[in-house]
């Protein structure tokens, strides 16, 4: 009798295990259904009007920043994303039938944007910000596809991803999607103005600001409890852009935010470089003033997050700036500095000047920039190494890259001098820090 009970129990247990395993298998491997996009498609204009709408939205979603390599064909992909578990390359999203997305149906494209699944049903990696694009309306997604398909196809095979196990198993991402991908477009908040709601849509579904500016948790999902508190990625800091007055953008005026986003520079706040410079260049400067104002209206209401980042800009500029003139540093500043000052006066002062106002162009003004106020010097070293390129209302502005011009010792000394002079900050950038930054 006892033996019979035991056999029965084992069988029940086995049955449960099989049912669970089958459930997990279905969850992991069942092909994802395609959405019905006919209702949305019927609401859209056709022809040139659709393509123009798509062009604006493609810029608002900043597809170019990731799907174009430096100097490469627009949207032909191939840009490397170095992640802690390997390297992912952005695919070609031109309408090329062999190497791009030329064979994708409308429904497949919408599914990719909303769920991160390619035309073959394979999961895409969340380096592709579909967790943000999930908030996009189907109409807007279709308009983006219409624009991409209106461009000449580019035949370009993106390099193969290089990921370690288990991250190279794409089905694992279905668990991740369950946790981190929202379902359906962003809903309107009736308590807020139309402008605020437009801003929320642009920030959350299009510009995907949080993908860089919100820290990630252990599972690499966005930690939205710390929304916009800032994060570090690929060797650069994406600063805190919550409304915190000290570590965020709470003390920026509306005008400063507007200028920074639409022109890449705000008086008293410095200029956008690195990935933010690209975001302005490819995306934000093309948006209408109304849309930029909407973004400002929304971003200002994101709750303050105090971050541990020490890139804090004091309300009063340091004495080193107020006692300097455009082309001469204050006597104190000269007395305390050696190599850093020497390098700055030779390579930097002719454009940046000494008083933080910029000599060559307002874009070279350093006063109030977080990059010259961050004792870690993270972005400062990157800008010195890589330079900066921007298209602005004053024409193309460029700073040369100094990576091949100066040694690690020299760039460390220059960085420490710039932080002391322009930010009034004590820093201890070492040549080893510079060597590390060169690798990124």
């Amino acid at each position, binding site marked *: 009798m006892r033996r019979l009970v035991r056999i029965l129990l084992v069988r029940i247990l086995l049955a449960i295990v099989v049912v669970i395993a089958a459930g997990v298998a279905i969850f992991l491997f069942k092909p994802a259904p395609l959405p019905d996009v006919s209702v949305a498609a019927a609401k859209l204009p056709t022809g040139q009007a659709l393509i123009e709408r798509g062009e604006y939205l493609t810029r608002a979603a900043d597809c170019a920043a990731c799907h174009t390599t430096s100097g490469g064909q627009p949207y032909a992909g191939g840009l490397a994303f170095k992640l802690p578990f390997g390297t992912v390359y952005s695919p070609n999203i031109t309408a090329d039938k062999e190497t791009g997305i030329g064979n994708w149906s409308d429904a497949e494209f919408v599914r990719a944007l909303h769920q991160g699944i390619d035309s073959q049903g394979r999961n895409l990696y969340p380096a592709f910000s579909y967790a943000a694009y999930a908030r996009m309306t189907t109409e807007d997604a279709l308009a983006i596809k219409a624009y991409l398909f209106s461009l000449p196809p580019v035949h370009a095979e993106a390099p193969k991803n290089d990921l370690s196990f288990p991250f190279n198993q794409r089905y694992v991402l279905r668990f991740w999607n369950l946790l981190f991908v929202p379902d359906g477009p962003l809903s309107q908040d009736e308590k807020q103005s139309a402008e605020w709601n437009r801003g929320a849509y642009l920030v959350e579904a299009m510009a995907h600001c949080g993908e860089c500016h919100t820290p990630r948790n252990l599972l690499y999902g966005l930690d939205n409890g710390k929304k916009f508190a800032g994060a570090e990625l690929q060797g650069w800091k994406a600063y805190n852009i919550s409304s915190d007055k000290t570590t965020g953008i709470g003390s920026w005026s509306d005008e400063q935010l507007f200028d920074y986003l639409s022109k890449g520079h705000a008086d008293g706040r410095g200029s956008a470089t690195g990935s933010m410079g690209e975001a302005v260049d490819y995306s934000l400067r093309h948006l209408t003033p109304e849309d930029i104002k909407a973004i400002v209206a929304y971003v200002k209401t994101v709750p303050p997050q105090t971050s541990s980042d020490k890139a804090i800009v004091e309300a009063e500029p340091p004495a080193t700036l107020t006692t300097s003139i455009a*082309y001469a540093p204050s006597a104190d500043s000269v007395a305390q500095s050696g190599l850093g000052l020497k390098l700055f*006066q030779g390579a930097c002062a002719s454009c940046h000047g000494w008083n933080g106002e910029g000599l060559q162009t307002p874009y070279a003004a350093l006063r109030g920039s977080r990059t010259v106020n961050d004792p870690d010097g993270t972005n400062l070293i990157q800008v010195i190494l890589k330079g900066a390129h921007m298209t602005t209302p004053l024409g193309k502005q460029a700073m040369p890259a100094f990576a091949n011009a100066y040694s690690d010792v020299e760039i460390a000394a220059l960085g420490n001098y710039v932080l002391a002079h322009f930010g009034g900050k004590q820093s201890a950038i070492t040549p080893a820090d510079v060597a590390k930054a060169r690798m990124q």
Partner: protein
Amino acid sequence: MIALNVNGEDRSVDVPDDMPLLWVLRDVIGLTGTKFGCGIAQCGACTVQLDGQPVRSCVLPVASVGSRHVTTVEAIGATQSGKKVQQAWLDLEVIQCGYCQSGQIMSATALLDRNPDPSDSDIDAAMSGNICRCGTYTRIRAAIKQAAKA
């Protein structure tokens, strides 16, 4: 068409907005005293003044000049400090090959306009961005001091 005031003269030039001011000066207007050196604002040979401020014309998009007055080496001798600087340059025979010297003179004049009695470190701070491959630096320093006293 872009409106410019160069050496006190109003001009209108038909060039793209992002053409560097240096190209406009040399190739369109024909003022070839200003030289092309490195093209990335690192040598100072292309220095001109905008409302008295020294700028590197090789990387300055012409559209960003606006209403500011452009002064080049051709006209700097008409200013008080420019005249003194050029005389000191001649007296001390500063120039060797001469390629960088129009830029040196534009930076030195701007320095003296702001600081009539510059110290060695003031001169270093204002002039280090102007490179001279003949190595005339000591004579440049001496000439600036002489011009300051003149």
